[in-house]
């Protein structure tokens, strides 16, 4: 699967849909996409169902987005997290840190995880 970032606007909420392998070659772009979305919207949901691999640099991009949103009072969630990503989140003990929701619609509605 090719690496890709697709953004989708839902009113004041931005969905960032990632696919492929989020590694050192790709994570800077992912980071920029997330931070850019947070700058212009009240909420950002990162959809991860099509991510087959993520390394610590990809995780770092997600952490930075989450911290940025918290500081500026915006909503941030990870949605439809693939097993490959969940395994790394658990390894880094971050599975309880991020707001994680089962699908992007839940993220848009702002339901608690």
């Amino acid at each position, binding site marked *: 699967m090719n690496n890709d970032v697709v953004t989708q606007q839902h009113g004041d909420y931005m969905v960032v849909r990632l696919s492929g*392998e989020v*590694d*050192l*070659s*790709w994570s800077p772009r992912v980071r920029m996409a997330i931070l850019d979305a947070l700058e212009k919207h009240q909420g950002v949901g990162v959809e991860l169902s099509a991510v087959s*691999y993520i*390394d*610590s*640099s990809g*995780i*770092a*991009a997600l*952490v*930075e987005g989450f*911290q940025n949103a918290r500081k500026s009072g915006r909503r941030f969630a990870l949605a439809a997290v693939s097993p*490959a990503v969940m*395994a*790394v989140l658990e*390894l*880094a*003990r*971050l599975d309880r*840190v991020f707001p994680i929701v089962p699908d992007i619609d839940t993220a848009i509605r702002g339901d608690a995880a």
Partner: protein
Amino acid sequence: MSLPAATVLARAAEGEGAQAFALLAELSETLAISLDLRTTLPEALNRIVDYMAAEAASLFLFDPVENVLECKVCVGPVDLSGLKLSPEQGIVGLALVQNAVQIVADAQNDDRVHRRVDAETGFITRSLLAAPLATANGPIGVIELFNKRGGQPFDTVDAGILRLLAAPAALAINNARMARELLEQQRLKREFDLARRLQKALLPRRRRAGFPLLAVNLPAHEISGDFYDYFEMPDGRIGFVVGDVSGKGLDAALLMTRAASLLRWAGKDDLAPSEWLRRANEELCQTTHDGRFVCALVGYYERSTRVVRLAGAGFPPVLFHMGNTYRELPSDGPPLGIVPGISFGEAAVALGDGSLYCFSDGVIDVRSGASRLGHAGVRSLIERYAGSPPESRLRSIVQELRYLKLVDDTTILLLEEPRVHPPEVYLRQTFAAEPERLRGVRANLRLALDRAGTPPQLRDRLVLAVDEGCCNIIRHAYRDGTGDITVSVRRDGDMLEFELRDAAPPVDPDCVRPRDLDECRPGGLGLNIIDTVMDGWCLQPRPGGIGNVLRMWKRCPLPQEEDQ
């Protein structure tokens, strides 16, 4: 013929036998308080004699093993304690056999009465009453009353009351017996535990890697009759013993401890194996008199020449396996501890790169379906795992034996010089230290780890950890510079080893530490992932002042081969 219990109870309730009720309650309490029947039973019998206005009484207990009724408690002018009667004899026997109260109004003219006691003691029995000590599992004894004071005979009301009064006595005796059995079981369990601990303490400790002897012992029951031992001689040879004691249980365990100590000491005396067995046999013949015996195999292994010298006493043949050939070395001496003055043969084997398997007969006797495993089954078991290193081979063989049915204690001792297996290399790849190359490297790593037999979930974690190592080299070691990374994956036994070499400026290993995971911040996770996934890692500068080597390792045993 006695009245039914309901009638007796009804009369008692009407006041006619209210005292009987009171006595019944007292007896029940007295007998329930203590399990020591030596004091409570005579007391209970005295109370019954007083209440029933009898001149004498006896309490007989039935011994089903000897088929006799024995007088255990006695009240009255004549002491009958210890008197044994056949269940076919007299009124007591009838009460037991028919499990019913017997009344004799005129003992002098009743053929059912056994008169030997009167003849021997001078006591004159006029009237008799005998009630069985009834339990749910049948009568366990009889209470017999002699002569009602005042001269009149015992009647049916007496019979009903005695049957009632016998009930708490029967219950108390039963309880006491069960308590005794329980105590006996606890005592035996303590003895078994002690014997088990003793046996475990006798088995030698596992040696460091590279020691040529490995052994395993599987008890079929609580205590094993098998044992093994090995020890180093002052001249560097290794002495070894495998033994199997006849019989089961505690006696066999005690003989095992004695035989194991004896064989160890005789072996340490630097005797030839045949003499070693001869001496042990003489000693065991002098001290073993209950028909028990010991099968044993003893020997020395000299590492410098790789020669084994051994001798056997009633032990199954030793199996020597080298390449594709098997050779059985018979162990034709008789077992130890039976006949003194016997001499034993000896055998020598050039071990070379072969393997010597010493099995107790429990291995041969393992059930495979309806048949025994036998020598052929043992060979195919060895064949199946011949490619594995000694430790995992023995473990796999034991697992299979457990899966089959052990009918006897099972011991295997394996003598084999550790082979130097060159590590198998699964991947060696040099690539430019650029992020864009990592995807291809990960794909190659996955393929290599699949070939190395790594389970998928572990494989993905290992790929992640190695990828993190590469990322750290690219970002922190080379920084803005360029260079190559060489990644290699190899297996050494159960260990997967990963190595990343770079040509970057040397990194101070002390500065490379995983961060605290409790901090939630974007960077610095890579080392944590390596630290969590791998069993160990180390970073060292390469000799010559250029480059670093990151070594990581993870224990990952080879998957077991499928059954053929």
